[in-house]
């Protein structure tokens, strides 16, 4: 398949990557829109200690199902979906208590396996979510960063009318601000960069 390949830090090109195959519990997704996250830039810069080069990055993936494994139920080719890139092992302590995001053997699509900077992405069926009607692929690719905002608001138990101070208006700060506002919180935000403050307001 065609993919953006990062061969080593600061070396990036469009090239050919081995076509992926799916296991019985997996789904093959053809990418349509993939967000670029600071994490992708860290991989490009050689700042992610878990990155093993060469690799295909991109973990904010929206696309269309092209193939489903034999054991997969309820998902069919042609369905527009987004991919939750975090894959827990299911057996370590954090996985057993429902915190697979902190899995001791965490695997991330776009770090440990090819991500959305290529034509095709393989994911376990449980990591696949249907895109609701009316959302474009570009909009849907925001599901991952907005989910980080949802997680932060859940962890902070943010409720309506509470004063919430968000320090930092980068991409993740913005997602948190918007989810907190959607919950009816009174949000005040700060950043050292004025352009970011303008975007946040």
């Amino acid at each position, binding site marked *: 398949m*065609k993919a*953006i390949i990062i061969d080593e830090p600061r070396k*990036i*090109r*469009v090239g050919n990557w081995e076509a992926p195959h799916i296991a019985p519990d997996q789904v093959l997704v053809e990418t*349509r829109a*993939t*967000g*670029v996250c600071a994490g*992708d830039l860290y991989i*490009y810069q050689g700042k992610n200690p878990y990155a093993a080069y060469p690799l295909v990055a991109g973990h904010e993936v929206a696309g269309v199902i092209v193939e489903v494994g034999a054991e997969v139920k309820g998902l069919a080719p042609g369905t527009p979906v*987004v991919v*939750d890139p*975090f894959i827990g092992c299911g057996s370590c302590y954090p996985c057993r208590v*429902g915190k697979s*995001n902190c899995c001791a053997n965490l695997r991330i699509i776009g770090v440990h396996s090819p991500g*959305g*900077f290529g*034509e095709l992405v393989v994911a376990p069926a449980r990591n696949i979510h249907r*895109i*609701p009607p*009316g*959302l474009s692929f*570009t*909009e*849907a690719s*925001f*599901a991952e*960063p*907005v*989910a*980080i*905002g*949802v*997680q*932060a608001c859940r*962890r*902070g*138990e*943010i409720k309506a009318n*509470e*004063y*919430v*101070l968000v*320090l*930092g*208006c*980068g*991409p*993740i700060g*913005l*997602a*948190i601000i*918007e*989810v*907190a506002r*959607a919950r009816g*919180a009174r949000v005040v935000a700060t*950043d050292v960069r004025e352009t970011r403050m303008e*975007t946040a307001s």
Partner: protein
Amino acid sequence: MKQTSGEGAAVVVEATGNEAVMEQTVNLVAAGGRIVIVGLVKEGTPVRFPGLDFTRKEMTIVGSRASVRCFPESLELLAAGVIKYPKIATTVDLWEGPRVISELVDEPGKYHKLVLVRSEA
């Protein structure tokens, strides 16, 4: 502080990853409030909190890593149109990725948020 009559915020969310900012959270949160740490400091970087505040303020300090089981709610919020974040996206053809990614590293403010799209698909 003014808006809360000096009480401090019910919730302070740290999203900078700067240790000096992280250390301020304890001064900004109301007694009995919550601090959520989302930003990442560099490996091994210590963050110092005045120890007496742990009991005096009895605040809850939690970390928040990526997300778990948050995609359905995230997609609902996006579909409801209450999240305007995608409006700041700059879309570029996927195969232009190598060029725009290196540009973004050399000039961090160039795009608020970049999305690579398959124009040919």
